[in-house]
């Protein structure tokens, strides 16, 4: 790839804390204007990678380039054109919404006049126009996240680095953030986001990288990964003895997984599975197209999660 079209490039990056390997020989590239997702369970190394891109953690080995600047050595220069939405809100709680933007803009060397000029459009973007003079401690969780997003845009960044931008939000607030992020993508911003929400990754990301234990276990477009790893319908069966049911439907299934009381049957012709199960009492059957969660769980194992 031509460097001017590449926003982020990682090559063979390694990081350990003590004996624990956090990131293991990771390489990926993000093109300008792309939304790239780092998907993985808690502890997969997502936040460490996000912090490495900002120069806040130095890799033990490998090469990182962000917006054509080598990181961490010239991370400060790169950060002038990066907006950051951290995993945990670090807004100024005693300040008003407007004061938060003022203080943050000054960290980028912006004059008060310039900050005042851009603040109204940022507040409008974050749907916080009516809250401009409200103290941040009085805002809801969703509003705080939107203010964090507006704050990240104060320096008109080329790249946004977002560490779990919607964790802890209710569905309404989450959808509003997703909608706002799509607007930013339409404006040509590059977004790198970490998430453990499959739906978020599927809705927003052009490409994503699935991580486990600091290693890349898959990379590609969401629908490409779904086709490649699942490629057929999924029948979820609740109730009954999973192992007994397993034997019954095996001839019609490409693959079967058992998770607790639930049986996941990957079947090219789900009707055949339904026919087999017809007349059995106490079963609930859900047939649906495959999604990223199936890919994720296929790759990392159904029983993995906490």
């Amino acid at each position, binding site marked *: 790839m031509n460097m001017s079209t590449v926003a982020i490039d990682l090559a063979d990056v390694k990081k350990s804390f003590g004996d624990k390997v956090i990131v293991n020989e990771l390489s990926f590239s993000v093109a300008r204007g792309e939304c790239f997702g780092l998907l993985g369970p808690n502890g997969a190394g997502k936040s460490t990678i996000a912090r490495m891109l900002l*120069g806040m953690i130095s890799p033990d080995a490998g090469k990182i380039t962000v917006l054509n600047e080598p990181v961490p050595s010239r991370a*400060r220069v790169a950060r002038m054109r990066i907006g950051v939405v951290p995993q945990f809100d670090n807004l100024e709680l005693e300040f008003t919404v407007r004061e938060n933007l003022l203080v943050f803009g000054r960290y980028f060397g912006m004059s008060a006049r310039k900050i005042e000029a851009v603040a109204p459009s940022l507040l409008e973007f974050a749907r916080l126009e009516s809250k401009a003079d409200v103290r941040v401690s009085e805002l809801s969780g969703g509003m705080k996240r939107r203010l964090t997003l507006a704050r990240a845009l104060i320096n008109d960044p080329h790249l946004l680095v977002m560490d779990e931008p919607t964790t802890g939000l209710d569905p309404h607030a989450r959808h509003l953030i997703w909608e706002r992020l799509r607007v930013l993508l339409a404006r040509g911003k590059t977004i790198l986001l970490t998430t453990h929400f499959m739906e978020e990754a599927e809705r927003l990301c052009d490409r994503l990288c699935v991580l486990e234990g600091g290693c890349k276990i898959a990379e590609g477009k969401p629908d490409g990964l779904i086709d490649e790893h699942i490629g057929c319908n999924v029948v979820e069966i609740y109730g009954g003895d999973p192992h007994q049911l397993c034997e019954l439907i095996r001839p019609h299934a490409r693959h079967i997984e058992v998770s607790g009381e639930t049986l996941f049957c990957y079947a090219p012709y789900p009707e055949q599975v339904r026919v087999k199960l017809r007349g059995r009492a106490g079963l609930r059957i859900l047939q649906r197209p495959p999604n990223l969660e199936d890919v994720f769980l296929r790759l990392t194992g159904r029983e993995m999660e906490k």
Partner: protein
Amino acid sequence: MGESYAAVMPANAYNWIAVWRRNFLAWKKVALASILGNLADPITNLFGLGFGLGLIVGRVEGTSYIAFLAAGMVATSAMTSATFETMYAAFARMDAKRTWEAILSTQLTLGDIVLGELVWAASKSVLAGTAIGIVAATLGYASWPSILYAMPTIALTGLVFASLAMVVISLAPSYDYFVFYQTLVLTPMVFLCGVVFPTSQLPGSFQHFAGLLPLAHSVDLIRPAMLERGADSAALHAGALCVYAVLPFFASTALFRRRLLR
């Protein structure tokens, strides 16, 4: 390795101002309570010891005890206000409030932040020290212009103790450890450095040791200024204070790098 330490030092001569202004904005919201809170303790000491002990002690080094003590209290309040601002408020901004983390995602470096915090803490020292000077001058224990002469030393004292406290917070796992610094370092320093009685009252070996302590240099500059006497070896005292301000600044920035940017 050297390169990575260079990258955390202040990026330029003015980035720190944004950090100072952030703290100023926060302080403005609670200014009155902050000023009263900072003044109550030293003024109580000044009057309690000054009038009470002053009656027994009589004159010290050719002046009234309360005038002698006033200069010591100015230096001490500069020390404590910078120390407490750094140990409690800056520590909270570095740790629980995640303010530093937010700033580190902008184009500021760790050194910019530490420098901004130091100058801010020194600003609060100037406020506290000057306020005591004004009380003393109003009551006739110091002359008005003398407060102006003392001000550069008050500011430098603030920088020194903010800088030293920065090293403490860069190493302390939590608030609980600060009490050791207070009780084992700061409190003894008040009694060793000529704040409440002349150092000539100390045993000889203590006098030599006390002469090395930063608060002693500070008192040796502020007291002559407030009593309008010429200070002995002023350049030496000022130089020592500068060393006490600058070395801990670099040490704490390097220590913060290890703590915050791994």
